[in-house]
């Protein structure tokens, strides 16, 4: 049994190598635990949030109500029936087209409704929809009807009382799929209003709450019953559609933590070599006095691991504390409680890393004959070191299994790890050999420096690979982090438009602009909109020109409906030309959204014909554009050159940012321009901005962990080589070398090591741009100044080496020791 009394457990802390190992394990524990806990919490919240957004865990949608048989299938589970349709609300001579959601008493299954007792009063939440005889209207509908809570409106053949102002529904979703003001009414009232005549477009939903495992069973039972007009949406499908920055953050989190694990593993491996040398003599003495293998392993390994446990516990405690803060910060009662098994696995992960990277080096002491240890012949044969390193990689594999939720993700992580941990040292081996061969004619100092590095591949390669990885990860993390933040922020600038306006006509424009000016509203631009259908491609009717038959295909959907066409002289900020060019300042040119173009098989040079009620127009495709649909800006599939759409009837679309507190003036705007459609996206914007702020902070926390693990690798690498360096320097001294030569050799060795690491980190950064771009940014990751970061990072290290005061203690003492 290892001695677990406090003193022997404190003793290892005197060793720098042990302290580096302990710190590396702490960082590693913190990183793994933070990501696992954060992912658990976010998954949990996301599942709840997406279930809220679609109104249930499963939603059976159709153009007719769910059948009795279908309702019976879910009778045991909480469920709710919804009908959604458009209708006109009337009060006196005023009427407004609205989007109505008729709900039963079980609505909402998830989340709460935000409502106000008066227009612009402070909103509160309720957990049920309107009772029979009541309607709840969104603010713009009240403004148009010039009514308030307590008044009545006519819905079809019924008079219904306005019960509340509808501010937000939990299932409003992340997109604004309806342009009309929203209305909530009770399902029981629908028949009596008579608004649903045969042929009226209605969407019927049967929403089911089937949390966790139950969902799959319900899905299995309902799927065979589906009629052709019905489909099922699940919380998982919805989550995939709306992850946005969270998907990127989650991916980046997993990649970063694997890098942290590998870097910490590297630091542990290098420091364990030094620890092994430090423990060797004690081990040899124990053997000499008859200690058996078991006793030695217990004394050395048991005590080492026991002394390291506090670091693991501190790492877990820090992660646990951070997790509690995260839960508090995110608010809400829906919190995830990690199971005991999760905590055990989190505690086990750093032990596995230590066992993989450090254990074989320390274990070897028990197998090595005392004679060799005492004769200072501790170096392991190259093959054994290679086996140790390969074996060490099993540890991160286990951690990767824990981190990745799916087998696909595990495969990707493993591929990355093998590429980095095996491929990188192999890749560096060639240049190192070449440098050794090429250095034969160099002057003494650079030759000695080069020899030290090139002829100790089993020390140099892990050290070099770890440093390359650390530098590359730092520069890539900086670029990716900045690009992620840039992208998120660009999609949601501080003054992102919080209102959208449609249906402005030419004659309204002057008065509308003047209203915007008086309210300090910021407007990105005005877009003329023409509703038209794509009818011809290169002179052929479009149905013949486009042969794709998939009904779900984006192109097919585009052909089946009126499209919003616009013209502009400048490319919107959220668009990027991917092929050809942006339109010129002359009529007859069109730029097409790239995914739609691919779906329809359109290419630069094609001639397109559009037909609108007021006429037709043709234009040549001069370029394709990538559109950032998540941006809060108006976006279009077809953008024409100025002058192309002049002959067709058009209205104007714009968005604007109205400072908080000026919303009370909006009813005036609607009264002044009664035909406009005004969309208030403040709630969605707040939600998205909040998400981005949280994601940014999480990305920053990961960067700090990466930096810490990189510094640990550097410290461990320096420590691992320091003893040999001191011996070599002592020998050179004895052979007559002056301080200047020693300093030159030391500085050149560091310069070659750090310079080589920076060079390969630079190349690795360059190579990694493509896969990272594809994974995180849909292929868009340009060169940036961050690629020079490895060079910037090594400069202070080199300067430290150069300026470091050198102490030469009696060299003979070293050689005699």
């Amino acid at each position, binding site marked *: 049994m290892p001695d677990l009394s406090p003193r022997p457990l404190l003793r290892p802390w005197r060793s720098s190598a042990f302290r580096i190992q302990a710190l590396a394990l702490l960082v590693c524990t913190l990183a793994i635990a933070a990501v696992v806990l954060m992912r658990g919490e976010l998954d949990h919240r996301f599942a709840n949030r997406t279930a809220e957004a679609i109104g249930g865990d499963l939603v059976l949608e159709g153009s007719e109500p769910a059948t009795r048989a279908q309702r019976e299938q879910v009778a045991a589970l909480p469920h709710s029936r919804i009908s959604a349709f458009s209708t006109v609300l009337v009060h006196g001579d005023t009427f407004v087209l609205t989007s109505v959601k008729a709900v039963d008493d079980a609505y909402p299954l998830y989340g709460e409704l935000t409502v106000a007792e008066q227009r612009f009063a402070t909103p509160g939440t309720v957990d049920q929809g309107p009772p029979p005889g009541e309607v709840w209207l969104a603010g713009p509908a009240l403004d148009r009807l010039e009514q308030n809570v307590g008044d009545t409106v006519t819905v079809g053949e019924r008079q219904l009382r306005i019960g509340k102002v509808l501010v937000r529904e939990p299932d409003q979703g992340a997109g604004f799929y309806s342009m009309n003001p929203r209305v909530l009414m009770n399902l029981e009232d629908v028949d009596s209003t008579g608004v649903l005549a045969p042929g009226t477009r209605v969407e019927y939903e049967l929403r089911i709450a089937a949390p966790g495992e139950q969902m799959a069973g319900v899905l299995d039972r309902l799927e065979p019953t589906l009629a052709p007009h019905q489909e099922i949406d699940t919380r998982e499908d919805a989550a995939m559609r709306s992850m946005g920055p969270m998907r990127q953050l989650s991916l980046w989190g997993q990649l970063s933590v694997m890098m942290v694990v590998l870097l910490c593993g590297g630091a542990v491996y290098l420091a364990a070599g030094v620890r092994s040398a430090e423990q060797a003599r004690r081990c040899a003495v124990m053997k000499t006095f008859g200690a058996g293998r078991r006793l030695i392993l217990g004394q050395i390994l048991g005590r080492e691991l026991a002394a390291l446990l506090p670091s693991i516990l501190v790492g877990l405690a820090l992660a646990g504390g951070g997790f509690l803060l995260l839960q508090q910060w995110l608010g809400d009662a829906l919190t995830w409680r990690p199971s005991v098994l999760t905590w055990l696995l989190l505690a086990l992960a750093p032990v596995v890393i230590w066992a993989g990277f450090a254990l074989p080096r320390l274990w070897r002491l028990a197998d090595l004959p005392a004679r060799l240890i005492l*004769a*200072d012949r501790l*170096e392991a044969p190259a093959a054994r070191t290679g086996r140790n390193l390969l074996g060490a990689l099993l540890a991160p594999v286990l951690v990767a299994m824990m981190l990745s939720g799916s087998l696909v993700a595990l495969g990707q992580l493993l591929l990355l790890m093998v590429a980095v941990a095996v491929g990188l040292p192999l890749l560096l081996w060639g240049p190192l050999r070449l440098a050794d061969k090429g250095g034969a004619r160099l002057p*003494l100092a650079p030759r000695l420096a080069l*020899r*030290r590095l*090139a*002829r*100790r591949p089993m020390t140099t390669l892990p050290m070099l690979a770890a440093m390359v990885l650390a530098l590359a990860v730092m520069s890539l993390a900086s670029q990716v982090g900045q690009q992620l933040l840039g992208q998120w922020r660009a999609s949601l600038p501080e003054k992102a438009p919080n209102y959208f306006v449609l249906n402005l006509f030419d004659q309204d424009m002057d008065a509308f602009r003047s209203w915007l000016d008086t309210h300090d509203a910021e407007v990105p631009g005005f877009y003329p909109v023409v509703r038209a259908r794509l009818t011809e491609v290169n002179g052929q009717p479009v149905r013949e020109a486009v042969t794709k038959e998939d009904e779900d295909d984006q192109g097919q959907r585009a052909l089946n409906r009126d499209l919003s066409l616009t013209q502009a002289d400048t490319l919107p900020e959220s668009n990027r030309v991917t092929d050809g060019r942006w339109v010129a300042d002359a009529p007859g040119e069109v730029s097409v959204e790239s995914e739609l173009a691919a779906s329809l098989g359109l290419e630069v040079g094609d001639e397109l014909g559009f037909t609108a009620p007021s006429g037709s127009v043709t234009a040549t495709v001069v370029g394709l554009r990538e559109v950032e649909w998540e941006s809060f800006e108006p976006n279009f599939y077809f953008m024409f050159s100025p002058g192309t759409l002049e002959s067709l009837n058009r209205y104007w679309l714009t968005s604007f940012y109205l400072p908080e507190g000026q919303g009370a003036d909006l009813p005036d705007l609607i009264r002044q321009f009664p035909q406009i459609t005004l969309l208030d996206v403040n709630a969605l914007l707040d939600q998205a901005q909040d998400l981005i702020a949280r994601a940014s902070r999480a990305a920053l926390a990961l960067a700090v962990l990466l930096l810490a693990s990189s510094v640990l690798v550097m410290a461990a690498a320096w420590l691992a080589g320091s003893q*040999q360096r001191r011996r*070599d320097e002592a*020998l*050179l*001294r*004895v*052979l*007559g*070398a*002056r*301080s*200047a*030569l020693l300093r030159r050799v030391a500085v050149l060795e560091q310069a070659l090591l750090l310079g080589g690491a920076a060079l390969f980190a630079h190349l690795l950064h360059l190579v990694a741009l493509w896969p990272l771009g594809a994974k995180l940014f849909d292929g868009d990751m340009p060169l940036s100044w961050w690629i020079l970061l490895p060079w910037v990072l090594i400069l202070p290290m080199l300067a430290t080496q150069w300026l470091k005061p050198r102490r*030469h203690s*009696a*060299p*003979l*003492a070293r*050689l*005699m020791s």
Partner: protein
Amino acid sequence: MASTPVLVARQLSKTVSAPEGELTLLEHIDLTVQGGDTLAITGPSGSGKSTLLGLLAGLDVPTGGDVRLAGEPFSGLDEDARAALRGRYCSFVFQAFHLVADLTALENVMLPLEIAGADRARDKARHWLARVGLGKRERHFPSQLSGGEQQRVALARAFAMEPALLFADEPTGSLDRANGDQVAEMLFDLNRDHGTALVLVTHDPALARHCGTHHELVEGRLSA
């Protein structure tokens, strides 16, 4: 006129601070070594043999007395100046060989020549490796050589500089009898052929008997 002695030590002493107070390691050491002399220093463990060797070679500085190397004051110089003087006149052979692990046998022999800026370092090193019978092993690294072979490379490295004085610290201490005898024979042959003075620290009475002068170091003092 008598030639200048290669090494002269006068009233050499060394004390160090220990928890129990000042500890005297060496005192009143007087030595003179002429060119071609062979001098053995023996003594029990802890008698200060290695400390004395360090002081004589300028690897450490005495707390009293002084050392002159080839007539030049040695122990009062700074570390760099001592290293330069040592490089010009002295060579070493250690018990643990102390070859640079990253350099081949040839490169190890070349090392002191290159430090001293000697011409044709490679040719000279080849010559000396051949002299110790390792002409065919010049590309081997120390880890690929036996203990005896490593010590022979160390001998080649020591003699390649054609030093006036060679310090040998237990040169056969890490070798078996056969290899030890071979290395010792080579050491004395080279010493004889090149007129190099030899200061040898050893436990081995047989090796000490090969030397012209034999001093025993007891409790920090030399006895003839």
